[in-house]
């Protein structure tokens, strides 16, 4: 059931309880978790945090803890499955689900007691009406025997309450209702998509309780940006949500007030930016960023010789000398960095890149710490899926979570380094796949399989990384081929997951031309 008053029906309920937090492994979930943890800290709420990376882990975690907890908060997991069926909880167990996965399972929607959904009301949900899909078991008419079998007619027959004709009508009505129900549920459940970022939902809660801080706002921004980076929401929704966050940013970050404190180490400022969508460019060289951002790499076709030429032309068009562009961004001449965004945008238009800039936010704190929201997304995701294991299973998750706090710059920088490695690995893998024709058309879909021994293949044994690779590969592949049909086809990718066990991880992504977010 949907919660209408987040504070009263959720926060006030759990504030005095021991709570188990089950958090999915994506950046939006981590951000939502950070916000909630901050709130919990204020109110000294007792909780335990368990990262879960899949259904199996969710079930296991639940089973392990169900005797000690009655209140569970699920972040970015649980909305789209029948939770009660899967977990089989006792009647006095309650689940608060803050999950951007859609569609929400109808059982979760209509369960009035144990499942509470923290979902924004304006998320387009289209949940089917109760009466269309549930039916109280009323008297089943006793079927007349010998409906369709060849057995002998009964020796005796009782006459029932309803007239025979009425009974047949009821049966027919029931069949019609069931057919309609099947159609309704099919339409409702056939496409997967995402609703509002969970981090934004948590921020909203904090705001309602007047406990919202600038840090929490920043996490909400990162959560939304994660949805954008992973292509989980439509352009329109992204822009709308940016607008929502911008109002909060203005509120928290009045320019006048900050003039005095702008250099204070403890102070942080969030600013709206209409920035270049070049991944990590401020922590890299412009050149590297151009090469390793899928948008530019795919449009310019940088895996080919002509593509490289085009890149040179592009840089020349902007009047940017190669030597400069290959330096670390911060070391670039100031004169070149002035108006860089407008310059790049103008040139980009000539080369077929009309969307090189995107609305986003950046954060400033301390003397020289400036990060774009997407920087944080890439860094955090890389930390989370770091294949170097430095301790027990959950260490990476915790480290990624920690890196979101401003005080843990070292972890953030580690994340940025890992992210650069990952983006480079992605582009190299993409180039190699295209040049060696590893993307095969299998009729209704495209297929690409990464073999053991492929360089960097270990990086892609994790879901978010593999997804990112797949998206970039598909984008590039569509640009690389004259075959128009490829734009309509989805892509299935596989990569080795655990070499010892011989398992493989597989991902499927929708076609390039889909402007809808429904998959």
């Amino acid at each position, binding site marked *: 059931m949907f919660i209408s008053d987040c504070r009263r029906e959720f926060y006030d309920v759990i504030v005095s309880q021991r709570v188990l937090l089950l958090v999915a492994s994506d950046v939006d979930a981590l951000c939502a978790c950070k916000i909630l943890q901050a709130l919990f800290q204020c109110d000294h709420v007792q909780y335990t945090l368990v990262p879960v990376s899949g259904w199996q882990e969710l079930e296991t975690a639940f089973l392990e803890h169900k005797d000690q907890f009655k209140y569970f908060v699920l972040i970015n997991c649980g909305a789209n499955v029948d939770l009660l069926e899967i977990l089989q909880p006792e009647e006095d167990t309650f689940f608060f689900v803050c999950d951007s996965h859609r569609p929400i399972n109808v059982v979760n929607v209509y369960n009035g007691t144990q499942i509470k959904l923290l979902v924004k009301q304006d998320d387009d949900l289209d949940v089917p009406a109760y009466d269309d899909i549930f039916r109280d*078991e009323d*008297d089943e008419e*006793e079927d007349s*025997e*010998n409906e*369709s*079998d*060849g*057995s*002998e*007619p*009964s*020796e*005796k*027959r*009782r*006459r*029932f*309450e309803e007239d*025979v*004709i009425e009974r047949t009508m009821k049966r027919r009505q029931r069949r019609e209702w069931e057919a309609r129900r099947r159609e309704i549920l099919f339409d409702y459940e056939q496409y997967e998509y995402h609703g509002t970022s969970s981090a934004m939902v948590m921020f909203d809660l904090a705001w309602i309780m007047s406990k919202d801080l600038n840090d929490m706002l920043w996490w909400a921004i990162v959560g939304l940006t994660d949805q954008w980076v992973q292509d989980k929401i439509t352009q329109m929704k992204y822009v709308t949500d940016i607008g929502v966050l911008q109002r909060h940013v203005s509120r928290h970050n009045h320019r006048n007030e900050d003039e005095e404190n702008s250099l204070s180490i403890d102070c942080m400022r969030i600013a709206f930016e209409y920035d270049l969508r070049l991944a990590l460019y401020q922590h890299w060289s412009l050149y590297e960023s151009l090469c390793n951002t899928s948008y530019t790499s795919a449009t310019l076709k940088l895996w080919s010789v002509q593509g490289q030429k085009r890149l040179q032309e592009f840089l020349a068009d902007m009047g940017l000398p190669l030597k400069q562009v290959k330096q670390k961004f911060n070391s670039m001449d100031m004169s070149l960095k002035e108006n860089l965004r407008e310059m790049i945008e103008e040139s980009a238009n000539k080369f077929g890149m009309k969307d090189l800039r995107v609305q986003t936010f950046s954060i400033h704190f301390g003397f020289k710490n400036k990060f774009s929201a997407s920087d944080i997304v890439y860094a955090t995701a890389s930390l989370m899926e770091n294949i170097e294991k430095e301790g027990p299973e959950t260490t990476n998750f915790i480290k990624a979570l920690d890196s979101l706090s401003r005080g843990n710059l070292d972890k953030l920088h580690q994340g940025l380094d890992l992210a650069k490695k990952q983006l480079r690995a992605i582009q190299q893998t993409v180039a190699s796949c295209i040049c060696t024709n590893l993307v095969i058309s299998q009729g209704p879909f495209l297929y690409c399989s990464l073999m053991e021994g492929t360089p960097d293949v270990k990086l892609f044994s994790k879901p978010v990384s593999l997804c990112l690779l797949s998206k970039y590969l598909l984008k590039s592949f569509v640009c690389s081929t004259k075959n128009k049909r490829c734009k309509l086809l989805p892509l299935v990718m596989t990569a080795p997951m655990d070499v010892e066990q011989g398992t493989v991880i597989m991902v499927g992504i929708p076609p390039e031309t889909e402007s809808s977010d429904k998959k």
Partner: protein
Amino acid sequence: ALRRQRVEVNIELRKAKKYEQILKRRSISVSLVDVSPSPGEDHEIKMSLEEIAEAVNGSNEELQLLATQEVRRMLSRRNPPINQIIELGIVPRLVEFLSYYDNAPLQFEAAWALTNIASGTSDHTKAVVEGGAIPALVSLLSSPHMHISEQSVWAMGNIAGDGPLYRDALFRCNVIRPLLALVSPTTPIGFLRNITWTLSNLCRNKNPYPPLDAVKKILPVLLYLMEYEDKDITSDSCWAFSYLTDGPNDRIQIVLDTGILPRLVGLMVSPDLTIVTPALRAIGNVVTGTDEQTQAAIDAGVLTALPYLLHHVRPAIQKEAAWALSNIAAGPPQQIQQLITCGLLPPLVELLDKGDFTAQKEAVWVVANFTVGGTVEQVVELVQSGVLKPLLNLLSTNDSKIILLILDTISNLFLAAEKVGERDRLSLLVEELGGLEKIEALQNHDNNLVYQAALSVLDKYFS
């Protein structure tokens, strides 16, 4: 060869199973429904059993009607409290209400209530009959109100269905004439369905068979009903014919004399299982009769219809079709020849090879009877049709009777072979098909008769 009557065992099993199912359904509903002391959950009037008895036995007409209606409602839902109603002792009184001609609603409710009581066990039906219901119901057949006469028909169907005793009690009460008079071109289809079902119950059961004069009166009406384009009516009518043909040859003849045979054969290939089953049963019964009666069935086209049924999707149909065929194969050579001419050998071989096991057993009978009654030429044609291989394969069955039948058949085949000097060729063929091995293996069989029969075959034809 001798024609074989159908084995009754399956019917008993089927009856028991259905009753079980009904019982099962009731016990499920018990857990779902609240066991509340007062009957009647969804309407305003709630009367206790005592109140009902009082009202029914009293003289206030309004209360009588209310109470009877209440009883009817109780008996029309899940878990009808039939025993409790009977124990109230009101059944004779309800029967009395049947004759209250100035109170049609009361007559109707009483008739419905009694119908439902009679729908229970034999004891329940007994209570209704012993309450004097039969003559009263017969009178009601002439009611000016159609819904009342229909209800009476229904009640009588339940009474007749209980067994030959009450069935004949109905006949003795002269049920036939008023009942048959209800069948007319203007009778509504629902009513006709009820009448047909009741008629089928009146034709049902043996020990004793229904009285011949009654049967003779019913048959013309059944013929009329068979022309209706209604699944339920056609099905129940066919069942009636299947009951009427299930008896000695004179009974079969009465049915044949109506000329219904072509229609029945036509219905054998209906796409509707509820029609195919009884039509096939009836025809199967007919060919257990005399050679002439069997010929009538052949003339009506049964041999054209049977191949479809031999590979019907339902094993039960395959089996009955094979049984019917086995009885035709037990006839004179002319009929066996017609069997061959109408192309029954290939489907027979296929059935023997791949059919359901119960059907395969009947198919063995077909072959066995064929080898007994057929001419040498016909037997040769039988062997040429490829029947030997699947037949020999069936020697690995567990059924001793069938093994003996097959060995017997093989002996017959050899007898025929000897007459045309092909004995050695047949031995070779049997050996090539792996039959010799199988027969040799049978020397180790537990069953003494099998062992001896196998030995005899080996001695005579393979030493």
